[in-house]
């Protein structure tokens, strides 16, 4: 092997330097498949989108011309953009918060020492169910459930909780809550499964020691479980923030961004620009704005990771 070619006369310092250089290449060797794939299939299209965002109108025009930042000015200045940012912020933070809480609660319950294996196995299967379906079917299913004549209204009225059924998805006052709820339902198992796996990695003796010190369940949870799970929680929360903020299909197929613009998100707004208005440059500018916002988030995340190391 080339790397082992003996050079017996090397000064020790030179050997150390070369060893360091070799070491420097090792991580890149490990990263190379990832880098090749992401550069070809992700960075190139993104660069193209950035290019689009600076033209007057691509795809629909044969000879688009350079337009500078006009598209950005137009997107940022529009009223609907502000509405979309507000709705997206609400939808995303509430969804991620609820995913996290439900994920933690369910995974802790499912990991309880108090239950036997079969019971836990059964519940583990039930709890993961929402995760197994494609968005299209989740949207259809919830449209059925939340239909004014649907089963949820029927149950609520029968139990006397409400007097008449509500138009959950089609009244401007409740639509945003309804789609957020659906998204919470559809997304928590992802947190739960990851946390469940994370819980297995926490050494048992930490709890034993805490019990000896007289800590109760809650104290053990706050002082041991949470800190131990923290790296996983932070990673997942960041990823979920990014994913949820661009959730499109679920919203599109349940409310289409309506009623009026009660559930208009950055993603639905961008879609309409591209495929309803055929303003691909505007849509690209909007996509780049979303990208920049996420990069800020990613930057803080990576810095947080580094600080922790």
């Amino acid at each position, binding site marked *: 092997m080339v790397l082992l070619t003996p050079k017996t006369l090397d000064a020790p310092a030179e050997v150390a330097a070369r060893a360091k250089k070799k*070491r*420097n290449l*090792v991580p*890149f060797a*490990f990263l190379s498949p990832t*880098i090749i794939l*992401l550069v070809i*299939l*992700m*960075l190139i299209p*993104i660069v193209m*989108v950035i290019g*689009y965002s600076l033209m007057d109108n691509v795809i629909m025009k044969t000879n688009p011309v350079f337009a500078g930042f006009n598209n950005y000015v137009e997107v940022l200045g529009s009223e609907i953009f502000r509405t979309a940012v507000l709705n997206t912020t609400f939808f995303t933070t509430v969804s991620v918060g609820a995913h996290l809480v*439900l994920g933690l*609660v*369910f995974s802790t*319950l499912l*990991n*309880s*020492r108090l*239950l036997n294996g079969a019971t836990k196995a059964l*519940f*583990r*299967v*039930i*709890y*993961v*169910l*929402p*995760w*197994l*379906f*494609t968005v*299209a*079917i989740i949207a259809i*299913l919830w449209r*059925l*459930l939340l239909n004014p004549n649907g089963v949820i209204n029927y149950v609520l009225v029968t139990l006397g909780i409400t007097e008449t059924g509500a138009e959950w998805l089609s009244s401007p006052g409740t639509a945003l809550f309804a789609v957020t709820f659906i998204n919470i339902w559809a997304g928590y*198992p992802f947190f739960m499964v*990851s946390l469940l*796996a*994370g819980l297995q*990695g926490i*050494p048992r003796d930490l709890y034993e020691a805490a019990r000896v010190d007289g800590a109760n*369940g809650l104290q053990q949870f706050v002082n041991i479980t949470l800190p131990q799970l923290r*790296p996983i929680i932070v990673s*997942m929360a960041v*990823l979920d923030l*990014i994913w949820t903020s661009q959730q*499109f299909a679920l919203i599109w197929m349940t409310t289409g961004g309506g009623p009026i613009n009660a559930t208009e998100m950055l993603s639905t707004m961008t*879609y309409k620009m591209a495929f309803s208005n055929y303003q*691909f440059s505007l*849509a690209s500018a909007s*996509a780049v704005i*979303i*990208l920049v916002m*996420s*990069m800020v988030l*990613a930057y803080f995340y990576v810095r947080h990771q580094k600080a922790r*190391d």
Partner: protein
Amino acid sequence: MSKTKKQREALERTGVLLALIGGAVFAGFPVLWMLASSFKSNTEIFEAPPRFITEGFSFAAYASILSDPTKMRFFINSYVVALAVTGLTLVVALFAAYAFSRFDFPFKRTINIVIVSVQAVPPITLLVPYFGLVVFLRMFNTYQGLILTYMVFTLPYAIIMLTGYFNTLPRELDEAVRVDGGGPMTALWRILVPVSVPGIVSVGIYTFMIAWNEYLFALTLTKTQDMRTVPIGIQLLMGQHSYQWNEMMAISILGCIPILILYIFFQRYFMSGMTAGAVK
């Protein structure tokens, strides 16, 4: 008055069980309703007041899917793609996660930021340039095109999560191997991978789900029925004028059963105590 330990434990157990049952209603009821609907006729699905089981109870929707070779082909395609994506993603991501977790190198932070944030571009705006790229690479309407596309979606998550798991493992573990003369490959495959199985399984399940359920790119990057996947099959049942409600529900139920079996099979890796000892 102090309760005995046994009494308190029984009380706690009841509490946990009640909480779990409450959560199960939230999680399971919609799916149960889907299952019930798949046995109904299309009219009964919209009946008011709604009922779980109706006179029209039948397996007709299932029969019509299982007897249609085109739809069965959708299932095969979905398996091929999802399994390949899962396998390849895990291998590639394990390499990358190892690099991130155990090495310091120039541009580490930049690469990390890029990996996290590339997923932030709304896929719908990438559709047109991405499609052009796939055609240019001659991967249009092939398994490779779908597999590599989904890897782009799944890799960032897989890398981040696996890096996280590796970070929770003490460095001494693999450094001991290095001291013994083992290389980074040995450290990764012999030491880190075996103790990270729960993490790898959960990442694997996630990867599989993404590849199984993706719709937009599956539709755009394929054109013939013999390359299409289950989500497109579901969408094909949503006609211009009316939906085949019961068949949509049935095909979703059929689609989730194999994943459920996979999950149950791998569940033992989540069971308490399996790996906790190994880490120490």
